[in-house]
């Protein structure tokens, strides 16, 4: 049991940090431009596939650097030639543009690499067990992922809170016109922030690709959870997104690991009815429920606290 708790906590932290890597970009973009980037998970997927392809051509380490840059460039192009022109039609049009983009990216990826998972492997340098706890070998690559995520988290926080760039970005979040009057090119700031947000998603994709499955529906699988994270944490709140990422990462990992059901917990009390909704609920295991746990959390938080954990805005 202790083994399960330790391993699941590690895995949960890892998944949570990955979620945060994605949701931080999404949150910054949202609070800046007011548009929820539906294609954010698609940029993550692009990162994974670019990582896979570049690893094949030039090796993993150059890919780790190059793939996020590529994704960031695509993100900037999307902002410059897509979102900026759509802005005048309102936020719904912007959201729909990114929705169409997510759809198109998924199809393009499926067209280029097929619909089945690609063989994206952990680099040989990191392909060994880091340590052994309770007879389980914990892979070094997962530790590396965790380290990269935490490193980026710290750098992001430092840049936003401690540097002049962060100061301007934060000011542009709340007072874009004032920042413009002070002589900063707000349009270019938006474009760069969008690019950095996309690049963050790209990094998450490159490092998560070998550990999770790299296939053309990975964006569609992750996208909704990402939105749960930022609604759960409170729209536009970076600390909220951080807490929500960890909560959802941990909860979901534990749910997958647990195999209990109501029937196993209260076995002797089995009402033994015919097949009905109640027997379904009675027999379903927690692991089976794991995919819907984030959405259950979403519904609960919306009933209890509609603005999310750390949200301040009541839209």
């Amino acid at each position, binding site marked *: 049991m202790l083994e399960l708790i330790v391993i699941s906590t590690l895995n949960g932290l890892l998944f949570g940090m990955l979620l945060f890597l994605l949701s931080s970009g999404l949150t910054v973009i*949202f609070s800046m431009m*007011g*548009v*929820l980037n539906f294609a954010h998970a698609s940029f993550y997927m692009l990162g994974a596939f670019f990582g896979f392809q570049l690893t094949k051509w030039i090796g993993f380490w150059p890919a780790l650097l190059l793939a996020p840059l590529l994704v960031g460039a695509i993100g900037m192009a999307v902002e410059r030639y*897509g979102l900026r*022109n*759509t802005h005048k*039609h*309102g*936020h*719904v*049009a912007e*959201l*729909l*543009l990114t*929705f*169409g*983009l997510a*759809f*198109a990216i998924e*199809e*393009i990826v*499926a*067209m*280029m*690499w*097929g619909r089945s998972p690609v063989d994206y492997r952990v680099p040989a340098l990191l392909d060994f067990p880091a340590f052994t706890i309770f007879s389980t070998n914990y892979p070094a690559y997962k530790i590396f992922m965790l380290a990269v995520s935490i490193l980026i988290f710290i750098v992001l926080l430092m840049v936003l809170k401690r540097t002049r760039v962060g100061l301007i970005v934060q000011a542009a979040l709340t007072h874009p016109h004032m920042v413009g009057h002070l002589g900063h090119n707000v349009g270019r700031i938006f474009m760069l922030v969008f690019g950095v947000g996309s690049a963050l998603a790209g990094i998450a994709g490159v490092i998560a690709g070998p550990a999770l499955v790299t296939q053309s529906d990975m964006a*569609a699988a992750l996208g*909704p959870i990402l*939105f*749960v994270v*930022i*609604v759960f944490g409170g*729209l536009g709140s970076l600390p909220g997104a951080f807490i929500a990422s960890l909560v959802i990462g941990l909860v979901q990992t534990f749910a997958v690991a647990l195999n209990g059901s109501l029937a196993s917990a209260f076995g002797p009390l089995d009402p033994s009815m015919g*097949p*009905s*909704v109640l*027997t*379904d*609920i009675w027999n*379903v295991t927690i692991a*089976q*429920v794991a*995919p*819907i746990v*984030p*959405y*259950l959390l*979403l*519904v609960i938080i*919306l*009933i209890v606290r*509609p603005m999310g954990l750390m949200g301040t805005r*009541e*839209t």
Partner: protein
Amino acid sequence: MSATTTSASKVADKPAGDALRFYGVWLVGIAALIVLPMIFSSGGSLTSFSLIGIAIVFALSYNILLGQTGLLSFGHAVHYGLGGFAACHVMNAVVSHGWPIPLPFIPLFGGLGGLAFAMIIGWVMTKRAGTVFSMISLGIAELVASSSLILRSVFGGESGVSTDRTALPKMFGWTFGPQLQVYYLIAFWLVISAIAMYALTRTPLGRISNAVRDNPERVQFIGYDPHVVRYIAFCFAGFFAGVAGGLAAINFEIANSAYLGAIQSGLVLFSTFIGGVAFFFGPILGAILVTYLQLGLTSVTGVWQLYFGIIFIGIVMLSPGGIAGLVMMHRPLARAGTLPTLIPSYLVAAVPTLALACGVILTIESIARTHSGQGSPINLFGVAFNPASPVTWASAAVLIFGGFFVARLSWRRVADAWDRAATVARDRGYLA
């Protein structure tokens, strides 16, 4: 979507000719529904008509949310799917209990299924509008779609719930075995639902929904609660989506978890938005186009969904009013009689635009066919292109870049011609 006038501005003091034309359009539509299967009576076209009819009801119900109330839902298929499941269960119950409920009433139960869910979940969902609503609808949709695979006794797991429409009590001696009879059943419900939904836009509720879309704060000031208005609109949309789901259940004689899924929600969003949300007939156009494309493209290309995505992005960026918006844009010019001056420039612009489109199609198809391993030639307007040959790539590049630059120039000329025509129309008093 600020300049939207969902069939609003033409109520009072209009000449009788307008009323005649208004009812004429509806009568022509109904007549077309009756006559169409007599002209195109093959099995394939009957199936297509049935699917289009269902898609129209679904898209119109979606527009109650998106166009009228300004709620962008990513989970509208939940009501559609639950309506489908409700219809299947009611049909099976009717058969097993021997209730005297004939098939034509089944879509009503589908509607009640969609309505029930909307009433339960809608109160929480419609607390907030805008982006938050979109995200919540997405989350709820995922919740329901995932739960449908867990609750096997209700949703039948992977295989779904099947039923037999011919086993129900007969009405007018119709068995509803042949597709033609099912088509007329769908057409009947299409007309009923379309009239009901159109009438809804003319009620005070429809008007206050538009107000909630445009300015919720002012609605609050005049004493209505936007939350309640959104909730009621949401319930109506859920009901009609359920009707569409019920019709689909009758048509396919099965309901499964795919009905509830993200793809279905995405398709209805595509249809409604491509057609245009600002006018009542927009979603109808969109549903016809999207269903037709879906049926037609699947047989031609393996990557039809990519074309969908590209068309959708194009519409969002270039014409957020959708096809209906484009059509209605020309109405004042047509009335002022200046539309013909535009036609030459349109024709000029069409050539490079088509070239650009051909280039894009050629590129996509070459990539798709190279990667899928089948090097079958691409047949484009009778010209066969080999996907592997450099000639194909070169011509694609020429078409794309050449087409793009010439198209940009020629569309600029269209814009000039448009300005001149609009100026004349304004002088004649047809354009505000």
